[in-house]
């Protein structure tokens, strides 16, 4: 396990290996997102109460799921950066934060577009909306602290501490639906129960969720590669790579 970490953790190995994966990942992302979007927006049935507005779900739900799980991924990278001092993990924290912030913003925007016709207002101070907004500020906080800390091997550690402490917020998001007054419906998907949604609705949704994950992985790896090159620009292998 530790050896595997170190093999992948070295910036050079990561750069070279991830390069081979990129085309496959890009194709997969493209296929999943195209299929999901066309299926969800054109062919999936409309809802008996919500009508056509239900289609916003096909973007909103994947974005919201990804916003939360990207925070978890960032926090795991932060833990690795703090405990094992892996250079690549620190770069991963730094590059995940803006992507996560983007996803959170997308979830909030699509959510409020859906909220206007359904709830009668763009924004409600409901628990889940509020904690998603808090999640956005957490991403921004990690990003701001990271960029204020400058370069250097230890510079990212403060941001990693912040990301880890913020992880406490994730269960709050999950349980807030039950704790506080809320209009946001409980999650329709759980692992243990059958979805409260017919198959022709949740199948395209699942495709979209997978597509979003692939897109996120793709974007993350691309940014990470760029960051690795930037950081290792003085090292021999990067010099050899960029010089013709």
């Amino acid at each position: 396990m530790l050896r595997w970490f170190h093999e992948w953790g070295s910036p050079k190995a990561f750069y070279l290996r991830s390069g081979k994966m990129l085309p496959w990942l890009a194709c997969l992302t493209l296929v999943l997102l195209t299929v999901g979007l066309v299926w969800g927006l054109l062919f999936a049935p409309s809802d008996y109460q919500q009508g056509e507005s239900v289609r916003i779900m096909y973007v909103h739900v994947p974005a919201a799921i990804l916003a939360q799980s990207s925070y978890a991924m960032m926090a795991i990278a932060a833990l690795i950066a703090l405990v094992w001092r892996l250079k690549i993990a620190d770069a991963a924290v730094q590059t995940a934060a803006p992507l996560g912030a983007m996803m959170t913003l997308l979830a909030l925007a699509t959510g409020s577009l859906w909220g206007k016709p359904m709830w009668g207002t763009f924004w409600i101070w409901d628990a889940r909306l509020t904690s998603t907004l808090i999640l956005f500020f957490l991403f921004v906080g990690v990003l701001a602290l990271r960029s204020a800390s400058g370069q250097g091997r230890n510079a990212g550690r403060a941001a990693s501490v912040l990301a880890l402490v913020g992880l406490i917020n994730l269960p709050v998001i999950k349980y807030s639906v039950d704790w506080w007054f809320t209009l946001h419906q409980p999650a329709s998907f759980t692992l243990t129960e059958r979805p409260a949604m017919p198959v022709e609705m949740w199948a395209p949704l699942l495709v979209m969720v997978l597509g979003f994950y692939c897109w996120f992985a793709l974007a993350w790896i691309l940014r990470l590669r760029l960051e690795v090159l930037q950081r290792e620009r003085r090292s021999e292998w990067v010099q050899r790579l960029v010089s013709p």
Partner: protein
Amino acid sequence: MLQVNALSCHRQGEWLFKELAFSVSGGELLEIRGDNGAGKTTLFKILAGLFDDYEGEVTWEIQDPPLYVGHRFGLNAQLSPVENLSFLVSLNQNAPARKDLEVALGRFNLADVLDQPCRSLSEGQRKRVALARLELTDSQIWLLDEAFSALDTKGRQVLTELCQRQVAQGGVVIFSSHQPVSDFDSARVLALGKSV
């Protein structure tokens, strides 16, 4: 007691020092010499365990953490020398008695400012308050960054005596200076930077 192997450190892309190797055993006095910007303070921070962005190995064989007196003395402006000193010493061992504190501060000629707030003290006085810790500590290793500069003759003399007593008891003193310190006959010198 201290083993340093292949120690390299760079800041802002410039190597401060590369492949530094030395060892220090009990009863030794080591002077680290170098120009401003040669990396003396960084080396001290590494040895103290404050800074770990380096490559190489630093191994201590000691019971207690080393005592470090740097450019910043750790004296709160609102508190008196007695209070500050008592706090700093008690971070590592039992709080010293008032009488011992008075003796230690008195040796550095601070008897008349014992209970004045530190903000009213001069830079030289504050440095001597920080150095008075040496009289009270149990620590075997002293790391004194630029301890001899900005001290009067009397202060240098007291500090020299304290350091000599420490190495005579089997401890280690590592100190730095940017001009040669002639107070010791037996100090080993480690030169940092290109010009030395």
